[in-house]
């Protein structure tokens, strides 16, 4: 066929490229893009922009950064944040490595214990347990009182930065444990055997073969821990450690106001570190899909433990278990205790804290259910839509939509909070008569954006399990696209969507970083903020702990339910395949 002149082709294409006929799905895509750009991209870019702006003239400048680095407090905060994050990775590794090693290399009956170790910390937000940890490991806490009485010395577990490091690593080590165990489990036995066959064994084999193969999983987990700790606001705030970046940003904005540039400079640094860590771990892992397990082949060979080794293994596991459970135990004691100060245990036990909590916190709890519920609902709707657009359509820019939604993971809550304050403070909400920045809906929106990646992942996984053939069958029978989605795709995805909802809800319910910036009055505050307020005074701690238990209950129940849904759905599908 002869080439048609290029101009003819172009002329054919131009109008449709300029005025695309928008199908319903494309319309939805555009809508979601607007939401993501407006509520995620613009606030973050605005924060970065303001960091480079002269607060008085509005001109672009690097002066803010010069001011930042010439202040010894900020330099110290920067260094502290870095140090705390790095040390948390180290301590979390020290906790996770033996656990991962024991479960993957040995036949160990206590592996169940280790599995529960992997999720117990995750059901309690770190800031909730922080004060309880102080009462157990603090200078005058249970452990040090006992140590002082018996041996005459104390260990500064919770002094200053140590406290943040301890609380964070106990909370976040499961990220390393889960990733590291998974990649150890994915190493095929033949990898090890081939090395033995060539004369290698013991530590040399571990160093040259096993460890490098497990490295990508470890790095993924470690990078996550680093970012989470670097960005976290709640824990240092509750431990009253203010000389770190996130608390400084919060304090500057809340005490000086949103025109103070330091909060923005800090935000910029936080975002850069997030992106940098993700990018570095991505670079490191590129081309390193080391999952080598073969069909039918086992993971690394496991051997039985000798008696001495078994005792040692149980010792290590139980010690770590005790550490990991200590925030939970401390919180429970605090919630049921009368007065607990300068004593290994509370003076007496009571239910009064729960009564106080109930009388004063009804508002917090109902606010939480409202905000987290709305956020999670919006998350699964948007998540399902994005999953569908990415997996089932060829709409231009669909990948970008996915990336943008996922990018919320790299945006610290403090930064999003500051961005919203800045972006919405000048906008009046019609009929309500206050600035949008202090309207409760903004809290729900922030939660929605922050938890969208979780819901998106669940919805994508759910949709991947719905075979395209089923959809085509429906379309083949005359159903329109929209009907097919509503009648076939969504019902089949229900379990996955539900699991996504529960996860988003449970984690949104205990979010503090963004919330704390956006709460403008106690009446609008959710539970996490309530805990923060209670914990500010010694007399409020009991009720705060009681509220904390409610939070743990919500997250624990949420985790359990979503697990249940996923498991039942899996079973249901398996049965379906058998028949």
């Amino acid at each position, binding site marked *: 066929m002869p080439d048609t002149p290029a101009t003819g082709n172009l002329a054919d294409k131009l109008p449709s490229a300029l005025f695309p006929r928008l199908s319903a799905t494309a319309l939805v895509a555009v809508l979601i893009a607007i939401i993501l750009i407006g509520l995620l991209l613009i606030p973050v870019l605005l924060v970065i922009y303001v960091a480079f702006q002269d607060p008085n003239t509005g001109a672009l400048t690097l002066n803010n950064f010069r001011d930042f680095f010439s202040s010894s407090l900020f330099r110290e905060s920067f260094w502290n944040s870095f140090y705390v994050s790095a040390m948390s990775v180290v301590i979390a590794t020290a906790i996770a490595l033996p656990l991962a090693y024991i479960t993957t290399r040995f036949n160990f009956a206590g592996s169940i214990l280790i599995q529960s170790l992997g999720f117990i910390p995750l059901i309690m937000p770190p800031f909730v347990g922080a004060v309880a940890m102080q009462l157990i490991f603090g200078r005058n806490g249970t452990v040090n009182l006992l140590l002082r009485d018996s041996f005459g010395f104390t260990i500064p577990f919770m002094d200053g930065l140590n406290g943040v490091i301890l609380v964070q690593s106990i909370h976040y080590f499961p990220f390393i444990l889960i990733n590291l165990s998974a990649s150890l489990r994915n190493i*095929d036995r*033949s990898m090890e*055997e*081939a090395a033995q066959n*060539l004369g*290698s064994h013991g530590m040399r084999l571990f160093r040259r073969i096993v460890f490098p193969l497990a490295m990508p999983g470890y790095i993924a987990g470690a990078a996550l821990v680093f970012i989470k700790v670097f960005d976290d606001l709640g824990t240092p705030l509750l431990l009253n450690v203010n000389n770190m970046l996130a608390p400084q940003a919060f304090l500057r904005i809340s005490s000086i106001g949103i025109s103070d540039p330091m909060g923005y400079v800090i935000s910029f640094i936080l975002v850069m570190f997030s992106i940098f860590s993700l990018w570095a771990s991505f670079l490191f892992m590129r081309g390193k899909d080391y999952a*080598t397990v073969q069909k039918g082949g086992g993971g690394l060979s496991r051997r039985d433990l000798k008696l001495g080794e078994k005792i040692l293994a149980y010792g290590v596991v139980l010690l770590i278990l005790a550490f990991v459970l200590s925030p939970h135990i401390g919180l429970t004691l605090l919630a049921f205790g009368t007065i607990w100060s300068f004593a290994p245990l509370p003076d007496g036990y009571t239910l009064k804290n729960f009564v106080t909590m109930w009388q004063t916190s009804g508002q917090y709890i109902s606010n939480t259910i409202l905000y987290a519920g709305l956020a999670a609902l919006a998350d699964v709707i948007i998540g399902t839509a994005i999953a569908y657009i990415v997996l089932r359509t060829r709409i231009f820019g669909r990948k970008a939509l996915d990336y943008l939604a996922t990018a919320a993971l790299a945006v610290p809550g403090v930064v999003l909070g500051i961005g919203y304050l800045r972006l919405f403070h000048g906008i009046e909400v019609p009929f309500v008569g206050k600035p949008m920045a202090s309207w409760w809906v903004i809290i729900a929106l922030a939660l929605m954006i922050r938890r969208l990646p979780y819901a998106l992942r669940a919805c994508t996984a759910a949709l991947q399990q719905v075979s395209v053939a089923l959809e085509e069958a429906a379309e083949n029978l005359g159903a329109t696209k929209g009907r097919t989605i509503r009648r076939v795709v969504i019902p089949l995805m229900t379990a996955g969507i539900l699991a996504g909802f529960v996860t988003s809800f449970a984690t949104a319910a205990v979010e503090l970083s963004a919330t704390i910036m956006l709460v403008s009055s106690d009446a609008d505050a959710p539970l996490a903020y309530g805990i923060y307020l209670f914990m500010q005074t010694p007399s409020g701690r009991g009720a705060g702990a009681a509220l904390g238990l409610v939070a743990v209950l919500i997250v624990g129940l949420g985790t359990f339910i979503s697990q249940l849904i996923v498991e039942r759905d899996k079973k249901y599908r398996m049965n379906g395949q058998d028949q």
Partner: protein
Amino acid sequence: MNDSTQLEAPAVAKNGDMKQRMVGIEIENLHLSFGQTEVLSGVDLTIEPGEFFAFLGPSGSGKSTLLRAIAGFGPRPRGMIRIGGRDVIDLPPWKRNVGMVFQSYALWPHLSVRENVAFGLRELRFPRAEIGPRVDAALDLVGLRDLADRMPNQLSGGQQQRIALARTVVVEPQVLLLDEPLSNLDANLRVQMRRELLALQRKLGLTTIFVTHDQEEANTTSDRMAVLDGGVIQQVGTPQQLYDAPCNLFVAGFLGTANILEGRVERDGEAVRFVTTTGEALPIAEAEPGRGSIVLRPQNITLTTDGGPGTIAGEVVHREFLGSQIRYIVQAAGAEIIVDQSHSVGTDWQEIGAKVSLRINARTAVVIPRGHGA
């Protein structure tokens, strides 16, 4: 591959020595269990120095388990394994000096091709200056020196296979063990690779054990082979021996196509006959009288239209044209008997439904006395 360059290379320069160092393997009364399940039961086997030996058997018959026991992997077996006269049963894998190529190749994905191949030399504490040339020589041996700096995931299946081989032979093991080395390759490559493997084995003179479930692979490569079933060695011999004179029904059925008829051997003076349960009498060469089964290879049966004594009457029920042969399924003697007739231009075809007679080649029929195999 270019022979002259290889002969200069260190790894192969010792070729002469290697032939002198060729070792045999003796296995005596080997038992191996996973927990309560016995997977190898009383294996006795002698493999000669320099031999290309195959373990052939269906999936789950214990081939890999036996091979891995020789390399020192898996549960500790009872019995005796000697390599080059040395009892190795209590030696850990890294002290046995046997090279094993894994079914999955097991190239380490975090190391380049060169680093993979150099691994064993480094473990053996070879001087740095020697490692490079030896690695190059090993890569030359498999013809892939230009891929030295690739990562394993950038190689095709056949290339990975060759690198795995190079990685194993570079340390000059006493014995080479190959666990289904060709099973992950596509059909064409498989034929090519098995020839290369054999050529390499001949060049290095390495005592080699090759595990496969594919009889064609075993037949075309091995000097001798052992047929395994249910963790027991059924028969050991050259491929022809096993095909022509299977010692039991399993071997008969596993190697090639076999028609098996039940009946008894009867001697009538000089004449020996096999009488099937349906009463057909077939003249055979020599066998002990008694109950048993007769094994008839499809190509050793002639299809005729004229009957007569010593033939079996039947009816063609199915026909397949295989190119060089025509395969008939004939209903006769209460069974469906497979008969292959060679085909060339102008050969007559028997139609389906045709009444035919089967004449067997008496010398080729093998009788297996009752109680020898399923």
